[in-house]
C-alpha cells in the first residue's frame, strides 16, 4: 500500500475513535506507524501478545484500541486471541501485515503466508484484506464491528520485495 494511503488509513481510524495503536512494527505498514508516531499515539511492545494484553486493558477502560503486527506475530498470538480476546468478547481491531503473500517473498515467510487465511478462518476472526480502493469501507466495517463488541482484522498485503 502506498505511503499516502497508509497515512490516510491511520488518520481515518484515529479520527473515528481509535485512541490507541499498540504493537510490534512491520515494514509492510511502516508509513501507517510513522503517521501514528507523528500524532504521538504509538506504543511499541516487546511481543505481539503483550500488545494485545495492553489493548485489552485499555479497552476495559473504555478506550478503543488497534493492535498492529506482522503475520508471524499473529501466529504467536493465537492462544491470546482465543483465551482472552474472544473468551471475554473484547472488541479491538487487528492490523496484520501479510508477509509471504508474494510467492517470491523471503523463505521464512512462505509457510506462514500460505496458511494466513486458514488461521483467520480457524479462529473465526472476521477479516478483510485492505487495498488502495477499499480501505475506507473496510475501515468503516471494522469500526462498526468493534461498536458491536466484536474483534476483527484488517490485512495488509506485502506487495513489494525489497
Amino acid at each position, binding site marked *: 500500500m502506498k505511503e499516502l494511503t497508509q497515512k490516510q488509513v491511520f488518520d481515518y481510524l484515529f479520527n473515528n475513535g481509535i485512541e490507541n495503536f499498540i504493537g510490534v512494527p512491520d515494514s509492510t505498514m511502516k508509513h501507517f506507524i510513522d503517521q501514528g508516531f507523528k500524532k504521538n499515539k504509538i*506504543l511499541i*511492545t*516487546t*511481543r505481539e*501478545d*503483550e*500488545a*494485545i*494484553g*495492553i*489493548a*485489552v*486493558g*485499555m*479497552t*476495559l*477502560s*473504555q*478506550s478503543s*484500541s488497534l493492535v498492529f503486527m506482522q503475520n508471524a506475530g499473529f501466529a504467536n498470538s493465537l*492462544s*491470546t486471541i*482465543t*483465551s*482472552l480476546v474472544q*473468551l*471475554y*468478547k*473484547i472488541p479491538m481491531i487487528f492490523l496484520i501485515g501479510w508477509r509471504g503473500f508474494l510467492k517470491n517473498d523471503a523463505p521464512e515467510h512462505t509457510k506462514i503466508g500460505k496458511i494466513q487465511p486458514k488461521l483467520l478462518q480457524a479462529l473465526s476472526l472476521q477479516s478483510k484484506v485492505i487495498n488502495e480502493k477499499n480501505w475506507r469501507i473496510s475501515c468503516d466495517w471494522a469500526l462498526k464491528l468493534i461498536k458491536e463488541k466484536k474483534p476483527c482484522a484488517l490485512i495488509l498485503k506485502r506487495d513489494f520485495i525489497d
Partner: protein
Amino acid sequence: MIRKEAINIVAEKIGNQPIISANGFISRDLFDAYDRNSNFYMIGSMGLASSIGLGVALKKTKKKIFVFDGDGNILMNLGSLITIGMTKPKNLVHVIFDNSSHESTGGQPTATNKIQLSKIAKSSNFKVFQVKTKKQLVKIFQKIKLIPGPIMVIVKIEKGEVISKRINIEPTKIKNRFMCSLKK
C-alpha cells in the same frame, strides 16, 4: 506464609481498588477470599496480567491499579517489565506471589530462586520491595500508599496444600462488572 494467606492479606488491604489477577491458583484464591466487581480474573492467556494492568493504568490514571501475578506468569512475559519501565505508570502496583514454582500445574520449579527478579525489575524503573512475613506484608502495603509507581512487591511464599474453588462466573460477566467498577 502460603499463597492464599498472602492473597487474603493483600486483598483485604487494597479493598475495592482494581485488581487484575493471573490465571491459575492466584485468581482462584482471590475469588475465594474476596470476590469483588473490581477483580478482573484472567483465566487464560498466561503471562499477560501485567500487560492488561498496564493498559488499565495508562488510561485510568486517577485510580491505583494492582496486578496479582505469579513467578511463573511474569517469567513468561518479562518483556512486560520493559514496557512498564518505558511508560512508567505512577499508579501501577505489580505484586508477585513468588513460590519459585508452577504450583497450578503440579509444582514444577521456576527460575526465581536462581536469578534475581528484583534486579531485572529495578533496572526496568520499578521501585522494588521484597517481603517474607505477614507482618512485613501488612507494613509494606501501608508504606507504598505514598510512593509513586511503578512499584513491584515480591512476596516470598511457600508452597501450600490449599486449593481454592474454581471461578464460576462467566468471562463476559467478569469483564462487564469490572468495566462498570472502573467507571465509578
